[in-house]
C-alpha cells in the first residue's frame, strides 16, 4: 500500500495521512457527522444558532477545543493510567474551554455575553469527550488533530447553516446586515426562538441525510 500513497513527514510515507488522514477527515465531517448523524451536541446547536455570528464563534470554539484536546489526549495516551483516563480527558478539555472563554471575555466581550454559559458548557459537549475516548486514545497525535478538525468542522458547518437560515428568516439579516427588506418580508420571530431552532435543525438534518444517502456497504 505504501507505494500508492504520497510520502509524508509524520508517518514516513506509510500512507497514514494520505490514506487514513483523508478517510478520517471524511468520516468525521461527512459520513459520521457528529451533529447530523450521531446527534451529539444538540443542546448548544439549538441554543446559540439564533444568529450567524454566534454560530460561527461557537463552531470555532468547538474546532479549537476538539483539536487541542485530541492532540493532548493522544500525546499522553501511552502514559495515562487507564483507571483515571476519563478524568484526565475532562481536565484537558476543561483547560482549553476555559482558555477560550477567557480570551473571548478579554477581546470579544459582546460575543461572550451573548453566548453566555454555552462556551463553558463545551466541557460537557459529548462530541469532544467522544472523540477523545473513541479516537485520540488509540491514534497518533497528527491523525488525532485531523480527527479533531474533521469533527469540529462537521459541527461548525451544520451550526453555520442553521444560524444562517435562522438569522435570515428570523430577522431578515445576515451577520447583522439587512438582506431581506422589511418592506416585503415580515421577519418570522419564530425562527429566533427555541422552537425555530428545532424546526430548522430537523430540516437541515433531513437534507443532510438525503444528500449523504443510505448507509449501504459500498457507501461505507
Amino acid at each position: 500500500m505504501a507505494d500508492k500513497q504520497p510520502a509524508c513527514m509524520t508517518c514516513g510515507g506509510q500512507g497514514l495521512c494520505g490514506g487514513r488522514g483523508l478517510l478520517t477527515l471524511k468520516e468525521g465531517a461527512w459520513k459520521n457527522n457528529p451533529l447530523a448523524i450521531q446527534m451529539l451536541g444538540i443542546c448548544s446547536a439549538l441554543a446559540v444558532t439564533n444568529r450567524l455570528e454566534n454560530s460561527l464563534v461557537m463552531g470555532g470554539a468547538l474546532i479549537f477545543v476538539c483539536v487541542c484536546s485530541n492532540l493532548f489526549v493522544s500525546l499522553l495516551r501511552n502514559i495515562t493510567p487507564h483507571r483515571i483516563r476519563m478524568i484526565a480527558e475532562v481536565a484537558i478539555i476543561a483547560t482549553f474551554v476555559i482558555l477560550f472563554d477567557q480570551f473571548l471575555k478579554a477581546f470579544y466581550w459582546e460575543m461572550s455575553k451573548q453566548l453566555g454559559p454555552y462556551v463553558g458548557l463545551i466541557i460537557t459537549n459529548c462530541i469532544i469527550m467522544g472523540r477523545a475516548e473513541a479516537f485520540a486514545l488509540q491514534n497518533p497525535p497528527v491523525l488525532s488533530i485531523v480527527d479533531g478538525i474533521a469533527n469540529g468542522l462537521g459541527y461548525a458547518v451544520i451550526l453555520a447553516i442553521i444560524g444562517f437560515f435562522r438569522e435570515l428568516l428570523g430577522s431578515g439579516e445576515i451577520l447583522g446586515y439587512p438582506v431581506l427588506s422589511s418592506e416585503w418580508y415580515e421577519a418570522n420571530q419564530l425562527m429566533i426562538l427555541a422552537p425555530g431552532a428545532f424546526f430548522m435543525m430537523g430540516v437541515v438534518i433531513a437534507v443532510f441525510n438525503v444528500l449523504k444517502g443510505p448507509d449501504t456497504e459500498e457507501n461505507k
Partner: protein
Amino acid sequence: MKGSAYTLSYAGVLGAACALLLTGVASFTAPYRNANADADRKRNILAVLQVPYPEKVSSEELVSVFETNVREEKSGGLELYRYVPDQDSEADEAVAVHFEGPGLWGPIKGFLALDTDMRTIRGITFYEQEETPGLGGEIVSDWFRRGFEGKKIVDESGEPGIIIKGGGETNAINEVDTISGATMTCDKVEELLNTVIVKIVKEKS
C-alpha cells in the same frame, strides 16, 4: 497494571500543569476582562439613569460620557451614582444605587435608579445574574423591569419596602408584577431590593 503511586502522581502533575496554564492565561487576560466589565457596569449605570448616549459607542467615549455626567459617592454603606446633567449647578436629576445579594443560583447584582425625591423608581437593571434562563432569567427582560418604573419604594404610610406580587393586580404604589414560574427568584430579588431600600430610606429621610 501501573501502581497507585504512579496514578496519583500522574493526576497531580496533569492537574498542576492545567492549573498553571490557566493561571497564566487568567492573569494575562485580567486587565482586558476587567476593563470590559467596568465599561459594562458604566453602560448599565448610564442606561438606568437614562443618561443619553449614542447607541454605537466605543468604550472610551462611554467612559467619558460617564465621567462628565455621573458622580460616584459612598454614603452610609450605599454606593450612589448621581446623574448631574448640568455641570454648573451640580443639581441631581436622578440617583442610582448599587445593590447585590444572593439569587436562586448565584449572586444578583444591579442598579436601582430613583428620582430626586429618593422615593420614586426611575428604572432598574441587573448586570449580573445566573437565574434559570426563561424563568428567573426573565428578570433582565424589559417587561419585568418596566414594571418597576414610577413605583415607590415606600407604601402609602411611608413604610419602606417593595412587594413583587402575583395575580396581575399591582394597584398599590409599591407593588410590582411577579414572573410566573420564577417565584423563588422573585422572592430573592424582593429581599435584596428591600435590604437596600431600607438603607436608602434611613439615609435619605
